[in-house]
């Protein structure tokens, strides 16, 4: 898994590529916590290049979401491939997250 950080219209975009699993999710958590520590108001996660996510990855995002909600921040996802979306649906947590089709939809929401 690789993580890149970008800025789009003043909002922080976390671009993830590869597999999010038990091996890589601690790195993801560490990165999310950096932004949460700064009380970043908007974090948009680009899933376009994510090839896999397991329960540890979903749990990492649930934790991130809870931390952000505590200070009024928003965690958004966009560009989720169908296979990844199915795993979120499988977890029944798909309605917990803000999910958008494109980066534009996310930042304009």
């Amino acid at each position, binding site marked *: 898994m690789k993580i890149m950080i970008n800025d789009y219209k003043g909002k922080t975009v976390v671009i993830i590529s590869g*597999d999010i*699993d*038990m*091996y890589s999710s601690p790195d993801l958590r560490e990165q999310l916590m950096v932004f949460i520590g700064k009380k970043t108001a908007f974090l948009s996660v680009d899933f376009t290049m994510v090839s*896999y996510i*397991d*329960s*540890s990855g*979903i*749990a*990492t995002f*649930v*934790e991130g979401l*809870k931390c952000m909600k505590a200070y009024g921040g928003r965690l958004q996802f966009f560009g989720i491939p169908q*296979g990844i979306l*199915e*795993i979120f649906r*499988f*977890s*029944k*947590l798909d309605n*917990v997250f803000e999910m958008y089709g494109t980066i534009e939809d996310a930042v304009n929401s």
Partner: protein
Amino acid sequence: MKDSLVITIPSHPKFLSVTRAVTGRIGELYEFAEETIEEIKLAVDEACANVIKHAYKGDTSKKIVLKYSVTRDAFTVIIEDSGITARKGMIKGRNLDDVRPGGLGVHFIKKVFDTFQFDKRKGKGNRLTLIRHMQIKI
């Protein structure tokens, strides 16, 4: 008729990608539906992750043995470890209305496989049998 395959992986999370690759390839060989392949990859990954996390408590120097078998009517994976024996109370899916990190793995496995059974006769460690009943071209 039955085809079988055994692999042993170290109990390090970096090898979970190997189990996913092998599981997925088996699914492709027997022409499982793409959705089924993704489901069994996820479930076997989660079962191995649970071994690392709970049976081995994060010890990456141990072994996990995966025994795959395919018959005309079932796909079976037996996962063996030599770690801490799972107790019944430890193994349960969680209430999905409770939004919190953790505890999703068993829920995924039980959703994908028809049988989720620990072998009580195993001495040290665990032997988990996962069976999905399905028609398979073999």
